[in-house]
C-alpha cells in the first residue's frame, strides 16, 4: 500500500451480510481533511466506517491508517483513531469524568496529561456542572457529548463519527461542530457520516456520496456540481439526483 499524506486509505473493501453491503470500495482521505460521507439508509456508510474502526472484519480489501495496515496491526491503528457511533454507548454508572479517566487509561494516556484535557473538554461541551453526576439520568444529547469527549480525550489523529449530531439540540450541535472544526484546524482528520446535508455542505472539505455499497461521487461541493453539470444546485438536489441514478442503474 502506498504511503503518502493520506490519513485513511481503503482499497477494494467488500462486506457481505445477507446482501452485499459494501462493494469493492476505494476511498482515500487526506490528513487534516474534514470528510463527510453521505448516502441513503442502508447504503453501506456505517458498515464501511465500522470496518475502518476495526469493529467489523471485511471479507476482502485493505485499510491503512496513517500508513499502518489496520488489518495486520489493529492495535497500532487504534492508538491513533477514535470512533463515535450514532447511539452513544457510555456507562450509566460512571460519571463523565470517570468515563474520560477510563478512556484515557485504555489509550495509555498519563493522568497528568489526560485530566486537564478531560476537564477542558467537559467545560467546552457544557458538561462541566454534571461532571460528577452518574450518566444514568442524562439525555441522549448529553450522552452523545460524553461519548464525543471520550473520543477526543486521547487526542486522536483520526476521528470517525457516525451520525454524531443525532439527538442533539441546536446549541449542543453548534458546540460539537465547532469542536470538530477546531480539531481539523489543529491538523486532525475527521470522517463523518450524516443525513443532515446542510452540515456536510458547510463543514466538509470533501464529500463522498455512497449508494448500494459503492462510492458514486466524491469531491468538494464545487467539484460535485461540475461532475454533474449542475452549477448552482444544492447538495440535497445533487444527492437526490446521484442516488436516484444509482438506484435506477
Amino acid at each position, binding site marked *: 500500500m502506498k504511503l503518502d499524506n493520506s490519513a485513511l486509505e481503503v482499497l477494494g473493501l467488500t462486506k457481505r451480510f445477507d446482501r452485499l453491503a459494501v462493494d469493492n470500495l476505494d476511498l482515500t482521505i487526506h490528513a487534516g481533511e474534514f470528510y463527510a460521507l453521505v448516502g441513503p439508509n442502508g447504503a453501506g456508510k456505517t458498515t464501511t466506517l465500522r470496518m475502518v474502526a476495526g469493529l467489523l472484519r471485511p471479507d476482502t480489501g485493505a485499510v491503512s491508517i496513517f500508513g499502518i495496515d489496520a488489518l495486520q496491526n489493529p*492495535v497500532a491503528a487504534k492508538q491513533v483513531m477514535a470512533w463515535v457511533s450514532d447511539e452513544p*454507548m457510555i456507562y450509566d*454508572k460512571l460519571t463523565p469524568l470517570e468515563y474520560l479517566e477510563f478512556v484515557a*487509561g485504555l489509550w495509555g494516556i498519563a493522568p497528568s496529561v489526560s485530566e486537564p484535557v478531560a476537564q477542558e473538554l467537559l467545560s467546552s461541551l457544557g458538561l462541566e456542572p454534571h461532571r460528577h453526576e452518574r450518566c444514568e*439520568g442524562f439525555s441522549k444529547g448529553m450522552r452523545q457529548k460524553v461519548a464525543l469527549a471520550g473520543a477526543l480525550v486521547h487526542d486522536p489523529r483520526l476521528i470517525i463519527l457516525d451520525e454524531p449530531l443525532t439527538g442533539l439540540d441546536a446549541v449542543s450541535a453548534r458546540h460539537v461542530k465547532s469542536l470538530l472544526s477546531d480539531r481539523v484546524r489543529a491538523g486532525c482528520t475527521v470522517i463523518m457520516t450524516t443525513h443532515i446535508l446542510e452540515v456536510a455542505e458547510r463543514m466538509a472539505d470533501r464529500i463522498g456520496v455512497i449508494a448500494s455499497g459503492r462510492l458514486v461521487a466524491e469531491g468538494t461541493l464545487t467539484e460535485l456540481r461540475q461532475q454533474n453539470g449542475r452549477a448552482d444546485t444544492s447538495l440535497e438536489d445533487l444527492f437526490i439526483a446521484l442516488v436516484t441514478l444509482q438506484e435506477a442503474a
Partner: protein
Amino acid sequence: MSSATALSWFARHELRLAWREWFAMMTGGRRKRARAAMIGLLFFAALLHVPAWAVIGRFADLQLPLDKSSLIVISATIFLAWTLMLSQAIESVTRVFYARADLDLIMSSPATLANLFSVRIAAIALTVTMMALLFSTPFIDVLVFGGGARWLAAFGVVIAMGLSAAAIAIAVTILLFRLIGPARTRFVAQILAAIIGAGFVIALQVAAIMSYGTLSRFTILTSGSVADYAPDVDSFWWWPARATMGDSEALLLLLALGLVLLGSVMAIFSGRFADTAIDAAAYGTSGRRRAKERPFRGGSRQQALRRKEFTLLWRDPWLISQTLMQLLYLVPPALLLWRSFADSSAALTLITPVIVMAAGQLAGGLAWLTISGEDAPDLVATAPLTPSSVIRAKIEVVLIAIAVIFCPLVAALAFASPFQAAVSAGAVIISAASATAIQLWFRVQARRSQFRRRQTSSRLATFAEAFSSIGWAASAALLLALPIAGLISGLITASLVAITWKFSPKRE
C-alpha cells in the same frame, strides 16, 4: 368503546404481552426455537418430578386430621413457597414501575387510568400465580399420584398464595415509593425481595444451628419446643395446610381471602399506581447520583479496564439483588463454622459444598456482567488493546471478586480443619473458573441491565453452569467423606464442562 369492552381489550393486550415476553424468555427471542423450547420445557417439567418425588413422595399418604408436628412442617413449607412468591412479585412490580415501555402511550390515552392500572395489577398477579403453578405442578402431581385426587386442592392453595403475594408486593412497593421516594425504592425493593426470598430458610437454619448444631431446618420444625408454642390444631393458622390436603372449606376461605386482598389493593392502589409509575419514569431524568471528586489514576490499560469493571460491579443494583440471596445462604454455614469451631463437628463438612456451590453461581453471574454485559462494546473494541488482553482483564476481575468474598470463609475453615479448607479452596477455584469459562464460551453482546435475562441467551450455558457448580460442590463434599467417590464425581463434572465447551459456538 364501552368501559367494559375497553377493559377486556386492555386485559387481552396485557395477556398477549405477558405471553410474548414469556415465550421470548423461553426461546431466547428466536421464534425458530419454539419447538425445541417447548420440548425442552416439557422434558424439564417431567424431570422435575424426580426430585419432587424424592422430597415430597413420602408425605402423599398423609390424611386429615394431622398432628401438630405435621401441620407445622406443611405450613412452614407453604410459607416458604409463599415468601419466594412474594420475593418474585416484589421484583416484578418494581420492574413494571421502572420500565417506561408503554407508559407514555397509556397515560396520554383518554382511557380511565385507574381501570387500566387495575388490569395491570391483575396481570402481575396472574404472572406470579402462573409461575408458581408451573413450579409447584410436579410436586402436586407426585402427591396426587401417590395420595389421590384430594391433593388437587393444592393447586387452589397455590392460586390463593399467588394472588395474596402479588397484592402484598404491590402494596409494599407503592408504600416504599411514598416513604423513601423513587430514587431508593428500586434498590431497597430488590434487597427486600432477596431477604424475603432467603430469610425464612435462613432463619430456620440459624435456629437449627443455635439449638441443635445442624443445618437441617426440619430438626427445628419437628422439635417439641416449637410444637409447644404452636396454636391448637383447629386454629385458622393451619388453614393453608388443611386446604392443601383437600379441606374444601379452608380452601374456599383461602381463595376468598386472596381475591379480597387483591381486590382491595386494586381499589386502593390502582389510582396511585399511575402516580408511582410517573414518579419512577421521572426519576430517570431527574435523579442523579454524584461521585466524589478525586484525581485521575495512572496504571496500565488492563488496570484501567479492571478498575472500570470493579466500579461498575460495585454500583450495580441488579447484581446486588441477584447475588445477595446467594451470599445470604452463606450465613448459616458461616454460623455453623463459628459454632463448631471448637469441637470439629461432622456437620462442618456441610459447609464445603455450600461454599463451592455459591462460588460457582456467583462467578457465573459476575462473569456474565463483565464479559457479556459490556455497555460500551464499541469503545472497548476500538481501544488499542488486543481482544485477549481485554478478556483476561475481565476474567481477573471475576476471580479477584470471588477471592475477596470466599477467602475469609476458607481461612476461618483452615483453623478448624486445614485439610477441609484446602479441599474447599481448590473446589472454589475450580468451580469459579468453570462457571467463568462457560460464560466466556457462550458470551453474547448485551446490556448490563439485561442481567436478569442472561439465562435466555443460552439454555445450554445456563444448565451447564448450574450442573458444574453442583458437580464441583458434590465432588468436594465426597472428597472429604469418600475420596474415591469424590475423584469420580470430579472427573464426571470435568467431562461435563468439556462437553459444554465442545458444544459452544465456534469463534474466529
